[in-house]
């Protein structure tokens, strides 16, 4: 067996196990951590397909940002796990049917023989997948590329609209105001006549 095939089978096995743990783990934090492993292994598989830019982006964006958000939410959320697992067995037959149908459909569509595809020859060492991607993305696919910007913009506006709330009566300090403050704003020097302190007679008498 070829070395890359061996690596492929190892990564595939890890990916399948991790995905299985995502849906079977009782603790949502464990499920999220398994999902991190699944994403990372999927990134390794993409790397084996010579899609280096996508593989690194998957690790950077999904593991570095999206999964951190997931973990953050899952760790802090007040989730009643028992409540969520209720109805698992009643819904299992329907869910299994949907899953099997989906699998058959994907196998039908995605099987390489349907398109008369043969495995591509391995690329030479100086082949840059990032370069090829860039040459396509910013010329032939410039319209979908700009659409991606619009989708990101919509996501940004939606996130702000959904989560941003002003709380009345809040107290806060403006750092700019704090920095701009001068001595005269805080300190008032009052000139007044000197006072002569009263002689401590009482203490002397006590000692004597």
């Amino acid at each position, binding site marked *: 067996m070829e070395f*890359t095939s061996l*690596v492929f089978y190892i990564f595939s096995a890890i990916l399948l196990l991790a995905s299985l743990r995502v849906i079977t783990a009782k603790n949502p934090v464990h499920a999220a951590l398994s999902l991190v492993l699944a994403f990372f292994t999927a990134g390794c598989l993409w*790397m*084996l397909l*010579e899609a*280096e*830019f996508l593989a690194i*982006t998957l690790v*950077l*964006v999904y593991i*570095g*940002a*999206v999964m*951190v*958000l997931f973990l*953050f*939410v899952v*760790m*802090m*959320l*007040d*989730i009643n796990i028992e409540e969520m697992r209720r109805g698992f067995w009643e819904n299992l037959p329907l869910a299994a049917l949907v899953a099997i149908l989906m699998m058959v459909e994907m196998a039908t569509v995605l099987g390489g023989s349907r398109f008369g595809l043969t495995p591509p020859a*391995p*690329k*030479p*060492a100086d*082949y*840059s*997948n*990032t*370069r090829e*991607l*860039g*040459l396509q*993305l*910013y*010329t032939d696919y*410039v319209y979908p*590329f*700009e659409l*991606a*910007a*619009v989708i*990101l*913009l919509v*996501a*940004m*506006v939606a*996130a*702000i609209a959904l*989560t*941003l*709330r*002003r*709380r009345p009566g*809040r107290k*806060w300090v403006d750092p700019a105001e704090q920095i701009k403050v001068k001595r005269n704003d805080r300190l008032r020097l009052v000139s007044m006549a000197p006072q002569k302190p009263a002689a401590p007679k009482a203490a002397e008498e006590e000692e004597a």
Partner: protein
Amino acid sequence: MLENYFPVLLFILVGLAVGVLPMVMGWVLAPSRPDSEKLSPYECGFEAFEDARMKFDVRYYLVAILFILFDLEIAFLFPWAVVLEEIGTFGFVAMVLFLAILVVGFVYEWMKGALDWE
């Protein structure tokens, strides 16, 4: 192309070994005499006060989501930077337009006060 990544694979394997071996050795070699006091969770010597899970401010999600969006924006810049000389003015203008659309969102969130931490 994959031969460039063989050192990375080796690095992953060595990294796994460095991470896993001490744990396995500790688990195998160290004496283990657990009792209920040793195994119970504690915080600073007290009994645990409450569950770690609690509701918290939605503002944290907002910061994280905005970070993801700009992270994606940066990811689009990498292939562009690699091929900038070949795609010429057209590619440059395409990226300027892309960034301009996202700057609209940036200005919106700035003006809206989503970046302020009250």
